[in-house]
């Protein structure tokens, strides 16, 4: 059974190995230079506040292929589970039904359950290995960037990428494992239920995309109860709006004293802690600059209320989300097994 599974999986395995090798070569060729750029920036020996500036300097000078490669790496890891779900998962069983080879497969001396179990295990494990391999390679290559951001460097588009930033969260740590397992199991189950390869591929793509959108938007923020606090109006605050009605929106992307925290929402509150959105007392024509507006608001006791997840919870989030997806994958696989063994039609 292992031989048959391997023989049927051969083409996909070789493609994946080739892609992995190409990616590895690309990263291996460019990685050391990136590391040397990092050490040349002197961040290794910095202290305290100067680190942030050095980090920002390092990040802003990254030109040429590095930002592109970074994004390419992120894209590859984001797409790997989808590709696995569509091209490894969906055809696994659907193709057997379409070609009617299930008549051949199920009338050898192997039970349907054992047949499906091996067919799930081999490509499933390969899926996990490939995705995690990509993620680890990317993590090794982008380590300098990650350290620079962690030290408070803020420059360029890459620097927005805190660990909780959706694209970063989804491509680092162990979450890719969960996504790959889920996508594969989703594809297989779609194939079992729909029995046609192309429709199963489409359904897998649609459902996986929907889940991957819903997770960071609505589910992940609430996996743990968020923390609420208020902070004084400072340089991190951005103000939008204004005009005669003096309706300002205050938002912040970082929380002083909590580097790397995940800001879920922020807004202005008055001295008693209630949200306010209009500030008629700060609409004098004299307030022309941002800093004077902020001084005016601060003097009236306006603060910013922030709802956030502490940076220290990062790994808790990683493990929880991975566990959720792995559980979903197992549930789907179990359901697929049950449907297949049912012999209704």
């Amino acid at each position: 059974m292992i031989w048959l599974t391997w023989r049927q999986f051969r083409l996909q395995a070789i493609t994946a190995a080739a892609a992995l090798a190409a990616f590895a070569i690309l990263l291996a060729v460019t990685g050391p230079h990136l590391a040397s750029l990092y050490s040349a920036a002197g961040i290794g020996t910095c202290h305290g506040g100067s680190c942030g500036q050095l980090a920002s300097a390092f990040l802003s000078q990254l030109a040429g292929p590095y930002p592109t490669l970074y994004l390419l790496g992120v894209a590859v890891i984001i797409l790997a589970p989808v590709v696995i779900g569509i091209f490894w998962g969906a055809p696994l069983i659907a193709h057997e039904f379409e070609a009617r080879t299930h008549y051949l497969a199920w009338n050898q001396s192997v039970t349907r359950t054992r047949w499906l179990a091996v067919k799930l295990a081999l490509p499933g494990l390969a899926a996990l290995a490939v995705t995690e391999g990509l993620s680890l390679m990317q993590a090794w290559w982008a380590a300098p960037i990650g350290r620079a951001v962690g030290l408070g460097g803020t420059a360029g588009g890459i620097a927005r990428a805190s660990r909780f930033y959706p694209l970063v969260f989804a491509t680092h740590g162990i979450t890719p494992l969960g996504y790959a397992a889920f996508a594969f199991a989703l594809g297989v189950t779609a194939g079992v239920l729909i029995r046609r390869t192309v429709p199963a591929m489409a359904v897998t793509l649609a459902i996986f995309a929907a889940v991957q959108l819903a997770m960071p938007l609505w589910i992940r923020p609430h996996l743990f109860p968020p923390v609420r606090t208020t902070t004084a109006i400072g340089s991190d605050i951005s103000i939008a709006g204004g005009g005669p009605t003096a309706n300002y929106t205050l938002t912040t992307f970082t929380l002083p004293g909590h580097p790397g925290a995940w800001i879920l929402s922020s807004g202005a509150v008055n001295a008693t802690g209630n949200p306010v959105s209009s500030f008629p007392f700060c609409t004098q024509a004299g307030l022309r600059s941002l800093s004077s507006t902020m001084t005016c608001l601060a003097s009236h006791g306006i603060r910013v209320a922030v709802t956030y997840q502490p940076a220290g919870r990062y790994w808790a989030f990683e493990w929880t989300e991975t566990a959720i997806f792995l559980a979903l994958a197992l549930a789907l696989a179990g359901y697929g097994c049950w449907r297949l063994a049912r012999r209704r039609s």
Partner: protein
Amino acid sequence: MTAVVEARGLGKQYHRNWALADCTLSIPAGHVVGLVGPNGAGKTTLLNLATGMLAPTTGAIEVLGARPASGPAQLARVGYLAQDAPVYAGLSVADHLRLGAHLNPGWDGGLARGRIERLGLDPGQKAGSLSGGQRAQLALTLTIAKRPELLILDEPVSSLDPLARREFLQELMEAVADQDLSVVLSSHLISDLERVCDYLIVLVGSRVQVAGPVEELLATHHLLSGPRRDPATLPGGQHVVSASHTDVQTTLLVRTKDPILDPAWTVSEVGLEDLVLAYMSQAAAGGRRRNHLQEVPR
């Protein structure tokens, strides 16, 4: 003699239609059994129930004394060749033999390789590029080389040209003689089955119309022709299968164990094809009165 297939009140329902109803059979071992009936009559359904691809809605079926596909040992005793001989298009002929060797503990590799060689199949050729006849022979080799006790084939020759058909049946008969196999094969043409079957089941309109050894069927069915007469006036032991009348003449196909003593009848023997056709036309006429036949999804 032990029964290879035992069915009691077997039925399978899809949505609102019964693909198979009220099927009670006891197929003895050591025979080549022909399952004949028009398309949509339920042949594939019955064979799928016998191999465990489907579960019954009502009744029960036992194959070689056990529930179909109830475990690896049971699966090893029964070989199945589905309609149109599905094979893995991307795998070569030799790969298929390896498949058989890996998935069947009772695999006879020498037998398989010998047949492939004798058939002139190229082991390196991809199965997808084989002709229909070659695919059927490959699939047959796969089922025979696992050394089952019972072989079930669903319309194995329906889509083959006459030469491929003859060669397939030759290979099958040799395997039957060699391994003492019991065989159940279905077809919608009786001519495919006449030479090879010694037991017949006629399935029309999802129901078994008649079943028994071919010799006995031929001995107990007679064609009676004589002056115009109401079939209801016949003696009780004579069961009328089909009747046709002109204004002066009546022709009846009857099934009876007793001799026909009425001198008014001219008695002649019935060929297997006419026998089957009579059952098929009667059941079709009755079916049209009841509900429409449903094509069974593959």
